[in-house]
């Protein structure tokens, strides 16, 4: 048991234990400062790690939110896409049965290009205007006998049918006399109607029933010297129906001839046309009726 002659092991252990246990030593302040600094550093590292995790979670949530918004937006856009597809399918419909020139017809090289000689927004003199108007209106006159009128002193009147002058004179008492062209659209079917009978408003046969309307074609300048030619395609309406709003001006930029216009017309023809048809008996009759009656009286 004893390893040496002088010591018992237990005495040695007890001597060290009693000498060193429960004793205190002064601690230098630098140790405490280092402890605090190290503890703060470790806490900062933990906070940074937690911050990184939170950033990752936030980024993940943001990505999920963006994805959800993307799909929601995609679902809300899908009805418009359906409208486009409907327009694309109806574009394959047969040509205009009335033979009136449309924007779609202007695609073919055989047909005269109404807009070919008139750059967008171009201002021309009266003399040049006559030639441009002749060139632009001629196909429409041949096809659907539209009324294209201008101011009484305009040379444009020479190219118009006689009923256009009558229409211009008859509309002097109306509110639109100051406007250059107020002659309403006259349908070929209306001419063929027997006297005394009134054409009831009916649904349009097709959205292709477009004729040239001169209502807003001549935009006279304030000085009266120049005029801007803005031919407008109007949907062909039956007599007595409320005049339709112009679908699209030809002076508007066109990328594909007639394509954009037809895409825009298609939902319009399905919804607004029918609405006007149903509301037509309730609305006040436009000047077209008076012109028609005057024409009949003149006849």
């Amino acid at each position, binding site marked *: 048991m004893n*390893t*040496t*002659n*002088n*010591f*018992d*092991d237990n*005495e*040695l*252990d*007890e*001597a*060290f*234990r*009693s*000498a*060193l*246990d*429960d*004793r*205190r*030593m*002064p*601690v*230098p302040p*630098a*140790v*405490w400062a*280092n*402890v605090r600094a*190290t*503890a703060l550093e*470790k806490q900062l590292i933990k906070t940074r790690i937690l911050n990184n995790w939170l950033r990752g979670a936030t980024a993940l949530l943001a990505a999920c939110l963006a994805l959800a918004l993307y799909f929601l937006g995609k679902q809300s856009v899908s009805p418009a896409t359906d409208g486009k597809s409907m327009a694309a399918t109806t574009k394959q419909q047969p040509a205009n049965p009335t033979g009136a020139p449309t924007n779609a017809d202007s695609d073919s090289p055989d047909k005269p290009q109404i807009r070919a000689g008139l750059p967008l927004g171009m201002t021309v003199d009266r003399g040049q205007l006559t030639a441009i108007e002749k060139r632009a209106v001629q196909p429409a006159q041949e096809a659907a006998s539209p009324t294209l009128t201008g101011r009484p002193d305009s040379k444009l009147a020479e190219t118009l049918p006689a009923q256009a002058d009558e229409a211009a004179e008859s509309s002097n008492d109306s509110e639109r006399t100051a406007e250059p062209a107020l002659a309403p659209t006259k349908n070929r079917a209306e001419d063929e109607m027997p006297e005394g009978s009134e054409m009831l408003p009916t649904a349009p046969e097709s959205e292709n029933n477009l004729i040239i309307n001169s209502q807003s074609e001549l935009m006279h300048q304030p000085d009266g010297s120049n005029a801007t030619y803005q031919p407008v395609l109007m949907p062909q309406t039956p007599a007595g129906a409320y005049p339709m709003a112009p679908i699209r001006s030809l002076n508007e930029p066109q990328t594909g001839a007639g394509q954009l216009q037809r895409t825009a017309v298609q939902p319009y023809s399905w919804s607004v046309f029918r609405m006007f048809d149903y509301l037509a008996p309730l609305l006040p009759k436009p000047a077209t009726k008076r012109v028609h009656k005057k024409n009949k009286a003149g006849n």
Partner: protein
Amino acid sequence: MFPDNDKQLAMSCAEGDSAAFDRLYHRYAPKMLVVCSRYARDRDEAHDLLQEGFIRVFEQIHTFKGAGSLEGWIRRVIVSVALANYQRHHAERSQTKSLSAEFTDDDQPFRAEEITAQIAFDDMLRMIQQLTPAYRMVFNLYVFEGMKHHEIAEQLGISEGTSKSNLAQARRILQERITKVMFDLS
């Protein structure tokens, strides 16, 4: 007002109260520095052990359930840090170092009271610090921590026989030095 109860103090530290941790440090650091000095080679290493030990205390204070004394818990944390430090730096060395000390036969045995009365605290601490790391670790764990040889062997990753041998060699070295000091003093 700082809590005097160890459990409340530990709870305050776990809640992140820096003032409570300051109080805990200043209450137990002087005692723990002695513990660290026993396991360390010198004073600087003791300070490093104390710093690392109290950082570990700060990190693990929430695990203190109040079953035992807070001082004992802190001491165990400090000892575990010292063990980790030993395994990091000294485990590969001096485990089989032979004892070169020569013992002298003396007819007059020394008692513990005589030793502590004649040898200063710092000298006794220095004697322990001058042991080789393996001897110092086994001596500290067996004498001061009350561990058995199989526990020491498990903690240090050595065999139980090596633990017993290292303890015997540490005792012999300490006896030699104490004897020398006692004879020098007498």
